[in-house]
Each structure stands twice: as C-alpha cells, then as structure tokens.
C-alpha cells in the first residue's frame, strides 16, 4: 500500500494526523475557555460553567465516539514521528558533518522531533493530572471527579506547575508554526501564492492557541477567579 511504503505516503499520514490533532486542540481550548468564567456565582459545584462543559463532554455521544479516534490519531502521529526520524537519520549516512550547518532555516523545522518529545512528555503529565481523574473514569466504569473546576484551581495556583504548563504550551507553539503549513505542503496543497498564506495562517493559529492556553493558568495563579 503506497501510503505506508512510500516516503510521500508516510508524510501524508503525518500531515493528516497532525491536522486532526490541531482540530482537537481548538475544541479543547474552546472548552477550557469556560474556566475563565470562574465559579460564575454557582451555588453548587455542578453548576460551575466549566463543570457544565465537562459534563457535556463526558456524556455527548459524538465526543465519546471521538475519544478512541483521537487516541488513535495521537498514536499514529507519535509512532510515525519515530519511524520517520529513524529512517531520516539512516538516510543521512554514518559519517556526519564536522562543521555544523550554517544553513538559514527556521529553528522549529529542524527540531520537530525534539519539540514533539517535549510536548508528549508534558502531555503524559497533563493526562495524569486531569484526564485520568475525569473522562477516563467514564471508560473504566469509575466515578469522575465531580468538581473538575477545583482540580484546575488546585493545580494552577501552584506556580511551579503553571511554569511547566506554559513551557509546554510554547513548545507546542513552535511545533505548530512549522507543522501547520508543512502539512499542506506534504499534501501537495501549496504553490507560490499559498505558501505565504499557509505560513501566516499557521502562525496566527498557533499564536491564538498558545495565548488561549497561557491565559487560563495565569488567570488562576493571579487569583482573578475570585
């Protein structure tokens, strides 16, 4: 099958899975923005805006179907990152250049694998802190944390965690600035006219996503929810 055994096919897998993961980021950020409403004057935890959103996400059939698809998307993107990186190292040959490359190219484009590893590392931490206590419980028959909002408040008032979280998000920003336009290039949907458009759109999208995810922990750390 060409998609698995040709270089362009493998890059297509990378670009499609990457764009799918970007669509997930947008959905995730939209849901998280509910955190900025604070407690919203709710009388009980269940009425806190963010908890209402979480409840919707945990019971919506479409989301429930998409969770395993999303996990598969992550898995494909990560596994192919390892496969492609290994193949590319091999293609470079055993002897390396002694002088380091002076070619002027974007830092992110040279370090997509490293950036991916950083994003993945923090992602695991993030899953343990939040997802394992929330949505995962629906899949394993446990009881999800009834007050996810409080989980966020507890973690985001810890400055160490906030710093880690923000470093994570900006590593993701670097990853997306190269990843977005690169995906369209790999799909063949690019030319002289579209190159600057995809690059600009990618930078805007990456920046909006990163700013959105950065505001939320800062909002709690500075106690703006009270």
């Amino acid at each position, binding site marked *: 099958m060409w998609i698995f055994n040709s270089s362009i096919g493998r890059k297509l897998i990378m670009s499609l899975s990457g764009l799918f993961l970007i669509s997930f980021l947008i959905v995730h950020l939209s849901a998280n923005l509910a955190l900025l409403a604070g407690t919203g004057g709710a009388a009980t935890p269940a009425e806190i805006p963010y908890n209402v959103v979480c409840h919707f996400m945990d019971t919506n059939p479409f989301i429930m179907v998409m969770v395993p698809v999303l996990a598969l998307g992550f898995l494909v993107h990560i596994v192919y990152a390892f496969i492609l990186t290994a193949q*590319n190292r091999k293609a470079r040959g055993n002897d390396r*250049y002694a002088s380091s490359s002076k070619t002027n190219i974007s830092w992110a484009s040279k370090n997509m694998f490293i950036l991916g590893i950083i994003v993945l590392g923090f992602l695991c931490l993030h899953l343990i802190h939040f997802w394992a206590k929330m949505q995962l419980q629906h899949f394993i028959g446990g009881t999800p944390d009834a007050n996810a909002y409080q989980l966020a408040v507890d973690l985001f008032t810890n400055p160490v965690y906030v710093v880690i979280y923000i470093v994570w998000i900006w590593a993701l920003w670097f990853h997306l600035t190269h990843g977005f336009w690169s995906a369209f290039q790999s*799909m063949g949907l690019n030319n002289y006219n579209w190159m600057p458009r995809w690059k600009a759109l990618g930078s805007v999208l990456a920046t909006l996503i990163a700013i959105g995810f950065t505001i939320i922990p800062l909002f709690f750390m500075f106690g703006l929810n009270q």
Partner: protein
Amino acid sequence: MDKTINVTLKIWRQKGPKVKGAFETYKLDNISTDSSFLEMLDILNEQLVSKGQEPVVFDHDCREGICGACSLYINGHPHGPDDSVTTCQLHMRRFKDGETITIEPWRSAGFPVIRDLMVDRQAFEKIMQSGGYVSVNTGGVPDANAIGISKIDADEAMDSASCIGCGACVAACKNGSAMLFVSAKVSQLALLPQGRIEAARRAKAMVARMDELGFGNCTNTGACEAECPKNVSITNIARLNREFISAKLKD
C-alpha cells in the same frame, strides 16, 4: 597588486569507499582573493604533487556553474558561504586572512564517498532513468507554435529546469532527502503539455526509485531551497506531492 590571504584548510581525506577517512590540515599562503575556490585547491594540489604527496580528489568540470559537477561542503554550507552559486563560482574574497576553512564531501547515505571529497552521485542518474524523460515518436519536427503554453507555466517549467543535479539539496538536508531534485525534474515536464501524458507514471516511478535508493523523507525544513545554487523553489516539492498522491489515488 592583488590582495592576498593566508588560509588554513581542514580537508577530509579518504583513500576509498570502504576505508575510514580523517581530516588533514594544510596551510596555504599568499592566495589571491581574486582566485576562485577551485583554483585555490589546484594550487594546494600542485604543492602536494611537488612534495610527492597524493593530491586532494574533488569533482569539477565546466567551472562556470552550469554542469553540476562540483560539490564540497564548505564551512557548514554546500557550495560554500555565497548565495546562489556553485563551488566553482565561489571566490577567495569571501574568506578572511588567517581563516580556517573546513572542506567536507556531501554526506548522505545516497551519495557514498568514492575518494576524499568526491562522492558517487549516480543515484540521481538512476532516478532520471526511471522516468525523467518524455517519450516521443520519431518523424518530422512539429511546429514549435503548434501547442499553446501559457507564459506562467513556461517560466515556471524553465525555473524547475534550471536544476543542474549537483546534489546540494541532499547535502543540505538533515534528512538526506532528494525531494528538491526529484520535484524539479518532475515539474519541468509536468508543467508542459508534452510532459502531461506520462506525468502520473513519471511521478510514481521517480519517487519509487528515490525511496529505493535510500534517500530520506522530506520534512519541509527548506534547507535545500536555501542552499540550492540555482534557487529551485520548494513549491516544486508541493507539486511532486500533488502529482504523486493524485496518481496513486487514481490507481
């Protein structure tokens, strides 16, 4: 009087494809800044020969930037620090007095070292043989104006055709990918009506051969475009991806 400089050269010496190589350092004095980089290497080789030592082996032919024979990875750049030129068009005025210049062969699994700075670039010929041509029936010469071609397509095909197949794209790429070369060779024909007839077969065959020869997967870093002596654009790579994917989807 010419301005002259003294340079130290760190050159990769390797006796054969299977032999382990190493860097050797040479001092070269009173090099005119008007001399070309290859003339500077000629002077070094004359000195080595007169001392009874083996001269440094490197590829060169036309020495005017059109044949694609010269190579050399100079101070971290394929074809040296100058933009949009091949090594043979590089001049010593680009270097400072007392500078150490590191000269290495192209490094890629697809281009094994033959000796010193010379690498085997037959892989590119093999890719061309797999489909980089147009099949025509012999007979009378058709009228050049019989087939209309837009100026935009003609210009873009010409830009793609400016690729001289030197391999700097592969040498610059951290993935050892030959996509810029292959995409230029596919594009120069895919953009023209005469090349459209075999376009799908060509894209599939050339990509298959490229993969088979051990070149890497393109990750769009753009290093190839930045180092290409002929400024071949990576939009060609997007076109190759498009040609290949649509050809495969039609199968």
